[in-house]
């Protein structure tokens, strides 16, 4: 289980690098996928509460390290999003690629609303929703979600097989 945690954290590191380089190289204006949010979504739907919340905090922390905002803002946002998705998503299924894309689209909108509310509250400027960039970002996240889910499923299935055969612990 410790190895699985380390691998999820390593995946978050790789996704944070991809998330900060790919939109820059491709000069994406709005349809920027939030790959770390997809990880938080996966954790909210599949992991147990304590481990999922802690790994979501780690994913948020990687966003903090590249975001030029006061540190722990995105950590806080990631854990808050995990809680909201956990409560709201108990009935959701993400078996196939299309399902995960649809759920990621919704999750991205929820995350954007929470982010706008938190930013508005702390900057004192009031809550400004920018619906068009929000929708484009959700669209990009939905496109990327099946791939990230596939990576995480592969990672988890390897652990299930290893544990069934008495291997990794």
């Amino acid at each position: 289980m410790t190895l699985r945690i380390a691998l999820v954290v390593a995946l978050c590191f790789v996704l944070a690098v991809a998330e900060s380089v790919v939109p820059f190289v491709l000069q994406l204006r709005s349809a920027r996928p939030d790959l770390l949010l997809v990880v938080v979504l996966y954790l909210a739907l599949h992991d147990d509460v304590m481990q999922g919340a802690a790994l979501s905090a780690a994913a948020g922390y990687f966003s903090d390290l590249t975001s030029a905002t006061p540190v722990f803002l995105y950590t806080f946002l990631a854990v808050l999003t995990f809680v909201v998705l956990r409560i709201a998503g108990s009935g959701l299924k993400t078996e196939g690629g299309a399902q995960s894309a649809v759920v990621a689209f919704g999750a991205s909108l929820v995350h954007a609303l929470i982010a706008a509310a938190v930013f508005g509250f702390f900057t004192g400027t009031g809550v400004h929703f920018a619906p068009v960039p929000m929708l484009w970002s959700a669209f990009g996240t939905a496109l990327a979600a099946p791939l990230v889910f596939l990576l995480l499923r592969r990672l988890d299935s390897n652990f299930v097989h290893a544990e069934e055969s008495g291997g990794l612990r």
Partner: protein
Amino acid sequence: MGSLLKRYREPLFVIGLLGASFLAFFVNAKKGRSPNTVERFLVAGMAPVENFITWAAFGAVDAWKGYFALRSVREQDLALRRQNIQAREIESQNAELRQENERLRRLLDFADKQAPKRLLVARVVAVGASPHSHSVRIDRGSDDGVTRGAAVIAPDGIVGTVAQLTGSYADVQLIVSPLSAVPALTQRTRSRSTVKGTGDIQRCILEYAARTDDLQEGDVLVTAGGPGFFPQGLKIGTAVNVVRKPHGLFLDAEVKPAVDFTRLDEVEVVVEQTLQPLGSTP
């Protein structure tokens, strides 16, 4: 008590995690601090990878453009030569004007209170990971003399300020970030206002522009200057969607940034220069 804690350990853990991250964020936002050893270590691992990927990707694009897509280069070359001649003429006129300005300043005994500045060219290596972050990472850091809060500009206008620093890299908060506010002047009327980020990469909002100001659509906004801010007179953007309400002190307007933040590859950081004694100019 033990069984109660065991029963509610999951919600307690999550509430604790939320509270701890919120408290840490709140303290950091209030005090502001430099990255600690762990954060420096992680950024030192992350930034060179980003730098390498960016370098390789743009290198491939440059190779394609430089060797394979050379059609119509001759026509472009001729056009650029003509532009170059025109630019040299303008430069020569500007040099004359600079000298004249200097003479007039001396005649008026004008003393520039601001410390002299120098511009440090930096390459953009990545953008903020989250789509909500509005930041870019540049390949210059505290080892190059960059400080927190330093202004970052591009040929088209202002970009943002340095928010986080390590030895070799710096994270720049863009002016479109909701955490950014820049004192502004309307170039035509010289009236003051503040350009505030909204989180939308294509627009900011104009605050504290008096309703009586003659602000028009398309008016250019420049930096107002002042200690700790951008140097005076740099382009911020143009005023759009100006709405003059029938009552209230201020008008509503938006600002379209002069810089296209998705196409930034090189920027300049304004760094303080140590004062040279008079007469030691090279």
